């Protein structure tokens, strides 16, 4: 009764319970001692189970029994009589009355044994349900698949549409480009035609009359040509000086002095024929008349200005008159009277251009003179072109290297330093940008919140919120706008801080104009008009960092009669440039025999140049020096060509 050893807990408890004879009415060994019988299930559940098994659940007791491989013995008719209708009899082969030792061999059924028995029966049913599940899943998946397919198809369709759109867009762009190109070519052609018509005409005459048909022997021709180089060199010197002076004068003064030149020229016409070779005296007279006509009319239009023109120096005047003489001599040498109108027009242009070196008022003067010289239609447009060019050059002179923005970039300048605010503003203004200024980091962030910028120039040391932090804040909502750190602290460590905080580049303080421009160009390149870049440049220009000055440019317009000869006088740099101008006119013009002639003319001219070049080797060296000065003085030439184009 006391200590039961061996066997699992449950079995020992069961055995102990059966030993208690006081339960015999409720539960007891079976008659044969190889089973036990629960006679009163109610009583057993309520009284005995709690006492021995700490629960009152008969079903759970039966489950335990099952686990230990007890089997319920079906109540046969006789046994039913033996223990009553309600009795449950359980049997285990090793569970015998008074045979405690065998209890050890009663084991919980091993899962391995049980599993097949336990799992197999439901497997059919669950298989079915699983099958259904899987079937459903497959159905779902295939549905999903079809949906995806549809979506994919629609995406494909829209992708195709987009590609189509892009292609169309591209086509349109190309068409637009083409149009722009044609337009520009047309314009250039137009200009070339005008200049070409006079130029080729004149050149043709000069070649025919001056070299082939006249009775001038070849040495004399050579001499003639040499004299040209000297003449034009002198002209350049004088123009150089004049332009310097003119530039330095106040607007009005220079304007009036320009007018004064006119009048002086007209007032001393008699000096001109005296310097002319005798063979051209009739021509000279005609020329003279022309000059007088034009000057008179310009005098009339400018009479009030003339009154105030006393300031202009006499040197200038005499220089101007010399110039006129020179060009007259030139034209007299080579050009028959019939061409004088053209020549005069170019002379007019010369004078105009001089005037145009000073801003604004000269514009008015040019428009005044245009109606005067309506002698031939090409003259008018020549002048018109030139005045356009020169007014452009004025504008460009102020805004030196301004890139050809299609849209002016909008820049946010962030600096607390007044000096840099002013300096930066000025640079931005010069480079044609619109801009706002913020004086601290918070202001910068606010500006960025409110509007869209193409570029941010950010000082680092700022009150309230420094540039790095401001950038970090901006980067939370704007990842694309380039932010340039503008600072004097540019150690590698500092720079890596800037870059790691979302800044794109560093502009070291104090910055120069060119550094500033470089940043602008780098980060706003998408705003530069593409057409202007794609248009082929005349080959000479790209070779020259600072091509002709406006003075020499002036010449290329002013005296078409002697493009070649003059080229020879410019230094070596200028020769290809001038050449390229001519050639470019030919190549731009979309047809017309005129331009073919022109190109061949220019090569003829070039031959002359080469000849003269040899003849004037010494003077060329001097020219080189002069022209260098020339270029130093005005390094802003290239953009002018860009604007004109």
């Amino acid at each position, binding site marked *: 009764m006391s200590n039961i050893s061996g066997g699992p807990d449950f079995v020992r408890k069961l055995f102990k319970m059966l030993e208690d004879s006081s339960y015999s009415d409720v539960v007891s060994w079976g008659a044969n001692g190889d089973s036990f019988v629960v006679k009163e299930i109610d009583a057993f559940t309520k009284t005995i189970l709690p006492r021995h098994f700490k629960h009152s659940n008969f079903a759970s007791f039966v489950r335990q029994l099952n686990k230990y491989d007890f089997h319920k013995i079906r109540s046969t008719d006789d046994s039913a009589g033996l223990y009553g209708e309600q009795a449950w009899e359980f049997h285990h082969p090793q569970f015998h009355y008074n045979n405690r030792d065998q209890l050890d061999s009663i084991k919980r059924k091993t899962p391995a044994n049980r599993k097949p028995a336990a799992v197999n029966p439901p497997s059919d049913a669950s298989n079915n349900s699983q099958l259904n599940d899987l079937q459903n899943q497959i159905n779902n998946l295939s549905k999903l698949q079809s949906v995806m397919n549809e979506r994919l198809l629609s995406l494909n369709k829209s992708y195709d549409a987009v590609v189509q759109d892009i292609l169309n867009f591209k086509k349109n762009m190309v068409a637009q480009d083409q149009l722009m190109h044609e337009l520009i070519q047309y314009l250039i052609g137009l200009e070339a035609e005008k200049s070409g018509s006079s130029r080729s005409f004149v050149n043709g005459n000069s070649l025919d009359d001056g070299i082939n048909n006249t009775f001038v022997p070849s040495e004399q021709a050579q*001499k*003639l040509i040499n*004299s040209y180089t*000297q*003449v034009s*060199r*002198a002209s350049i*010197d*004088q123009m*150089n*000086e004049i332009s*310097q*002076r003119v*530039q*330095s*004068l*106040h*607007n009005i003064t220079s304007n009036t002095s320009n007018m004064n030149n006119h009048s002086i020229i007209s007032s001393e016409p008699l000096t001109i024929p005296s*310097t002319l*070779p005798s063979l051209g005296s009739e021509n000279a007279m005609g020329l003279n008349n022309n000059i007088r006509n034009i000057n008179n009319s310009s005098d009339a239009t400018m009479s009030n200005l003339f009154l105030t023109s006393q300031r202009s120096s006499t*040197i200038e005047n005499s*220089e101007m008159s*010399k110039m006129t*003489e*020179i060009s007259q*001599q030139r034209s007299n040498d080579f050009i028959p009277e019939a061409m004088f109108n053209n020549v005069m027009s170019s002379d007019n242009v010369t004078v105009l251009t001089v005037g145009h070196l000073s*801003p604004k008022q000269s514009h008015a003067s040019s428009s005044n003179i245009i109606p005067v010289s309506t002698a031939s239609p090409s003259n008018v447009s020549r002048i018109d072109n030139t005045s356009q060019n020169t007014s452009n050059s004025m504008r460009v002179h*102020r805004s030196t290297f301004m890139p050809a923005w299609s849209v002016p970039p909008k820049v946010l300048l962030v600096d*607390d*330093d*007044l*000096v*840099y605010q*002013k*300096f930066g503003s*000025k*640079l931005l203004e*010069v480079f044609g940008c619109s801009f706002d200024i913020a004086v601290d980091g918070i202001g910068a962030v606010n500006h960025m919140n409110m509007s869209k910028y193409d570029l941010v120039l950010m*000082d680092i*040391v700022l009150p309230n919120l420094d540039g790095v932090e401001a950038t970090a804040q901006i980067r939370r909502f704007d990842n694309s706008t380039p932010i340039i750190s503008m600072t*004097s602290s540019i150690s590698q460590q500092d720079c890596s801080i800037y870059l790691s905080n979302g800044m794109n580049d560093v502009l070291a*303080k*104090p910055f*120069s*104009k060119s550094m500033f421009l470089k940043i602008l160009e780098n980060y706003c390149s998408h705003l530069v008009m593409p057409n202007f870049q794609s248009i082929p440049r005349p080959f000479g220009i790209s070779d020259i960092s600072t091509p002709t000055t406006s003075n020499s440019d002036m010449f290329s317009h002013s005296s078409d009669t002697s493009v070649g000869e003059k080229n020879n006088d410019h230094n070596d740099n200028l020769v290809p440039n001038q050449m390229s101008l001519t050639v470019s006119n030919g190549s731009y013009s979309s047809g017309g025999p005129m331009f073919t002639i022109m190109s061949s003319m220019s090569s003829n001219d070039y031959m002359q140049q080469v000849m003269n070049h040899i003849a004037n080797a010494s*003077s060329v060296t001097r020219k080189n020096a*002069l022209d260098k*000065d020339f270029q130093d*003085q005005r390094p802003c030439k290239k953009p002018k060509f860009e604007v004109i184009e």
Partner: protein
Amino acid sequence: MPSTPRVEDPPEVGRNREEPNDGDGEEGYSSDLLDHETFNQLLEMDDDVDHDFSKSIVWHYFEQAETTFQEMDKALSDENLVELSKLGHFLKGSSAAIGLKKVKASCEKMQHYGNMKDETGTESISEEDALKKISSLLEKVKEEYKEAETYLKNFYSERDDTDNTKNTDEKDSSPTEKD
């Protein structure tokens, strides 16, 4: 045939160009004070006939510098090294923009001292040391600034007096120091 003599005519050009060398004596001195390259850049941005732009920048600089010196004085009496370093940095920037090399260099030193570093910004120094150095440095900067101010003011007043024809050459001509 004609017009050979005219080639020899342009003496004006040469004369204009030589003018800049007149002030050579002072050039060495002023280039120590002023970085001409930077300053000329400012001048180049002026209109052809006046110096309104560069002058306004320089005058703004004067104003700003005066204010900054007052702030520096205050920060020094408060022994506020951080503020002194900041002010040094600030004035360094605008001085560099004008090209005032001496003032810029001194401001840079002040920036370092304020960070309790030596004048090159490498070795650490004590707070006491820093304050002492700054107080003598501040006097020096002020002198250098005065020098620069006088120089620039002279420059502009001479400019205003000069014949306008010289303006195209403003890049090269160096006004003389009249202090």
